[in-house]
């Protein structure tokens, strides 16, 4: 374990994207470091927390709202992103249509959410390279254009999952937020997700 951090802040993170692109699986990998081939559909939203160390003396705790993907759950969306500091908008690299849906989410966030919200685009299911429908370059250039962080991830293999969340943490205004939150309980090793702080990823 690392030495106790001197900087600590909590941020609200919301996961958005088409159904079955792997939102819950990404969070589950991040929080529990595990993966199930079939994960129960998320109804409404699930709440989880996870802590990461951004650097030697900086810890960020994410309060994560994992949401249902089906179009009609959109009516609950303002509640998800009301006061969210950051968002991960997920698409499935094997489903071109899911990128369109992700773009619509980004547009809505940029119009409706906090002005300072940090948005990351995540192309998930990198392990299914042979079924790829969305070229990395296409998504990358869209992300650049829209001012988003961009990662291609695999919840199954774990590739780039931690990088995604630490990438977001590094973009957040930690100093500005630090004062209004409680002191840090303990540090967490960045190289693997903390087993202790997460909970309740699945709906069962």
């Amino acid at each position, binding site marked *: 374990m690392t030495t106790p951090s001197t900087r600590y802040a*909590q941020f*609200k993170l919301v996961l958005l994207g088409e*159904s*079955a692109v792997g939102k819950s699986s990404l969070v589950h990998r991040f929080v529990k470091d595990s993966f*199930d*081939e*079939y*994960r*129960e*559909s*998320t*109804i*409404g*939203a*699930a*709440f989880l*927390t996870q802590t990461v160390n951004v650097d030697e003396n900086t810890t960020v705790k994410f*309060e994560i*709202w994992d949401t*249902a*993907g*089906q179009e*009609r*759950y959109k*009516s*609950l969306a303002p*509640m*998800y992103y*009301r*006061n969210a500091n950051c968002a991960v908008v997920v698409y499935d690299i094997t489903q071109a249509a899911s990128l369109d849906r992700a773009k619509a989410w980004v547009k809505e966030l940029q119009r409706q959410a906090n002005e300072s919200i940090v948005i990351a685009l995540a192309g998930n299911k990198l392990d299914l390279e042979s079924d790829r429908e969305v070229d990395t370059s296409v998504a990358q250039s869209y992300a650049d254009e829209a001012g988003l962080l961009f990662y291609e991830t695999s919840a199954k293999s774990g590739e780039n999952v931690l990088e995604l969340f630490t990438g977001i943490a590094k973009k957040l205004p930690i100093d500005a937020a630090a004062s209004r939150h*409680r002191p840090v309980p303990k540090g967490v090793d960045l190289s693997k997700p903390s087993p202790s702080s997460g*909970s*309740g*990823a*699945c*709906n*069962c």
Partner: protein
Amino acid sequence: MSSSEEDDHSAHGIAESFDPPFNMPVVFKRAAADLSARHEATTDDQQSSDIPDIYGPDEGSPYPETEIEKQIQSRIKADILRSKLNYSDPFDEVHDRYGFRRQTAKISLDQYNAWWKEYRPYIQRRERKWQNLMSEVGLYHKDTTNPPTRFPPRSSKVTRYIRKGIPAAWRGNAWFWYAQGPQYLAKHPGLYDFLWKRAFANHNRDAEVIERDLHRTFPDNLLFANHNQTDDESPMISALRRVLLAYSEYMPATGYCQSLNFLAGVFLIFLDEEKAFWMLVIITQKYLPGMHDENLEGANIDQGVLMISVKDTLPTVWSKIGMGFDGFSADQVRETTDSAGATSLDDKELLTHSRASTEFIRKLPPITLSTTSWFMSGFIGTLPFESVVRIWDCFFYEGSKVFFRIALTILKLCEPELNALSDPIDVFQTVQDVPKSMVDPNYLLTSCFKRNNGFGHISEAEVRARRMYVSEIRRRSSRGQLGLNRNGNTPSDQNFQQWDNKMYKFQKRSNSPLLHGLPLRLRMHRLKLAADNHT
């Protein structure tokens, strides 16, 4: 559902003028005629707008017979699979009597086994009691092996028996009976088969979203899990596909909504797929109206009703869960308004007051992100499975008030833990996690139904009144007409009048003491006060 509720499925009769599409098998002709009759039903039939026009010129296209044959085979396999459940003995060391894993994220195998050791003699005792009750009224004979399909009329004794749990092997039939399933089935013979076949033939518009959820419905349950030896999907998954496609076909305005997969999945554990289909129709139309609709407004309305009820009956819990993300509470807004001296019933002040005090209804507190799924999925995934089915026993017999009572009970049982918390984050976590660890359904249901528990005695009429109230506030809010208009005047009397007409109709039906004998404005005010716990 009270027994006095108007019978909304009286026979419409088969339309004389109906001309079936060519080369349709007889059973389809009957079903199509049935659809046609529904199509031509009077405007007060709320489902009439959902009825598809199936008589377009392309309707004569032949069904893919090989595919249909495959589906019929898989239906037989699903029935065989279901028949392997005896609903009394656990499948094996790891799974329970319904095929679910005993161990969950919040309940260890030891905890489960300890509970089951106590619970098993209990259900055996209840089964004997039920057998005696049913024998007395001639609905059960010891020599017959088939579960009964008819159940005794409502009485306080039956209510008591149902609250203590219906025998699992009879459960499906009892739900179906008390939800008036036999009437639906008798009135629409063959319609289910017609619908799923039609969905296959015409490529249903929800087919893709349904497909995405099939393998994400109870992946841990033995009945639904893929067979390891082959690549074939479980026949229960195929059954689920047919039921959800048929539903989407029958209710195109509602279509498929995530969470229906779980509801249908539970029905399929206890009933054959045709009955499961009708239960899905009944639960979404009669018990949880509008909840799964395109905009989920029915779900939002019920959350508003729940929040009002929490505010009314569990003020300590409300002080914890009524918080917004930024720590603001709806109460604080109201108190500010009150201190400004809005005491008279002057229109402007009444509306100003109501705007502040109904803030939490228009803009639901974030806790509803968790509690919405309680209602949409009927507590599947929220509570352990045995609790879910015990709640459903009461729900199909007593009506949707049961879900509100259970939700209040869960929050009440969370109260000691919530009291120790101040950070909203911990509050969310507790409300989400505590119910998952509630291993004993008897404790939950006893807490829910015991006398003088100080909460939870919300009646079916109150649920209806509060749904209307919340719906109206949200409707006006969404049109930007709640409170004062641009000129500083009150909304037009027409709006009041429309609302009053609805309330009047309701009052006549329910004779609600909430509204009885009061003039219009006072009636509105009373409702708002009731919501604010000022009464």
